[in-house]
């Protein structure tokens, strides 16, 4: 997946968690602001690691706290 695909995957997945519409999930808001607690976020990241078949360091929680930043980081890495 490229960066755009990862952004869309994350918005869909997080929208499901929040029981809202993917269009309302701001990719530039911090996960915290989106209303996602850390455990829910870790579950999302666990699913994403499975989806992309890569390992994701727990430190991304602190380094890339938005959907856009995380997607950029992961797209870079898997490229």
């Amino acid at each position, binding site marked *: 997946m490229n960066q755009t695909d990862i952004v869309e995957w994350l918005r869909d997945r997080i929208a499901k968690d929040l029981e809202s519409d993917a269009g309302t999930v701001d990719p530039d808001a911090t996960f915290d602001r989106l209303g996602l*607690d*850390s*455990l829910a976020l*870790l*579950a999302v*990241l*666990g*699913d994403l*690691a*499975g989806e992309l078949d890569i*390992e*994701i*360091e*727990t*430190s*991304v*929680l*602190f*380094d890339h706290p938005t959907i856009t930043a995380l997607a950029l980081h992961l797209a870079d890495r898997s490229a």
Partner: protein
Amino acid sequence: MSDSNDTVIERVLELQGSDPRPHGPSRRLLVSDPEGFGAILHSTAFERTDFVGLLAGPGLLASDGDRWRARRRIVQPAFPPRRPEAHLEHIEWAMPAFIERLEDLARDRRPTCLLEEVTRIVGRIIYRSVFGIEIDPDDHRIARFEPMLHAAGELMLSLVSPGGRVDGPLVDRVRRTRIAADEEIDWILERRRTRPVAGVDDALGRLLAAREEGLIDDEGIRDEVRALVLASTETSSNSLVWCLRLLAGRPEIRATIEQELDADDETRLEAAILETLRLYPPVWSNERQATVAIELANHQWAIGDRAVLSVYRLHRDPALWPDPDRFDPDRFIDPEGGPRRPPHRFAYLPFGAGRHLCVGRHLALLEMNRILSTILGRFRIEFEDPDAIEPMLGVVIRAATPITVRVAGRDPLQASEPPA
């Protein structure tokens, strides 16, 4: 001579030998000096990180600000700092069944798991003193929380370890085990409603009264109960095991404690408990996050920077504690008699400091005192293989595998035996 297990020292040094994450954004900087501990734990510029909330939900333990203040006001009066003896009744209530069980084990010479034995009595004390309900001696209900505690510990370690990976199945396990723990909490709530112990001023009773006043909802109560379990069970039971293990390696100290106990003197027992909590502080590490840019504890902190407060390293700082890996209860005894203070106001923090100073510290110390004086006064704990105990870091420093011991009665014949 070192009385400590090298594996755990190596692991902590690997994790906390230097700044875990020296560069931004979101730096994680190590704090292990007493001035730094005091400054950060008492600063309003630093708050709990989200780690603790991950473990048990967003209760008193995990919160700062308004929620912390509101929840603390509810729970704190059930742990009166000036009347620690308020808890004694619950400890004494649980003791006869504990003694009976140890007597059975001594008679049969049957091997048993030490951690499980002490967890049983700690569980019964906590259910009665904190939740206001009585459970039968054979009903090992506290064990129903263990899967959650162990999963939470693994998750915490994956978050604080450099290079830790997101582990989807582990996250699922944390969620599943929390659901299982909540089933036990429902049982506790039901029992508290139908068969409360009369006249007990317990934390759960205060939480339920607060619910009546609209100060907390059902989910809030569950968060608090999970946090109370997290804070009160593995912490105490593992500390009891470490203390007995340290004493087994130092029979001369154990013999002195036994002699003192025979003369109703608890000076050295109390010191041995404090010394155990120095070497194996249950909460071995803590984190705080800067909410404003501030200069403190020799660092310029940016918003979001994390302070990694290594209690383990603080307690083993050779500048504060000479020969720090040595088990020496006399550090806590004044040569003139009476207890001796730590070398610095913030050199010794097994219960933390500041807003999150452990509300149950008096209960924990009294419980350890009564359980250990019972064991040391009446029994001998013989470790099958003392060196096989593998400490592992989780929520607390705990033993990774069951600890097999045999119990023997401490009769005068055995008491006069020379130390092995």
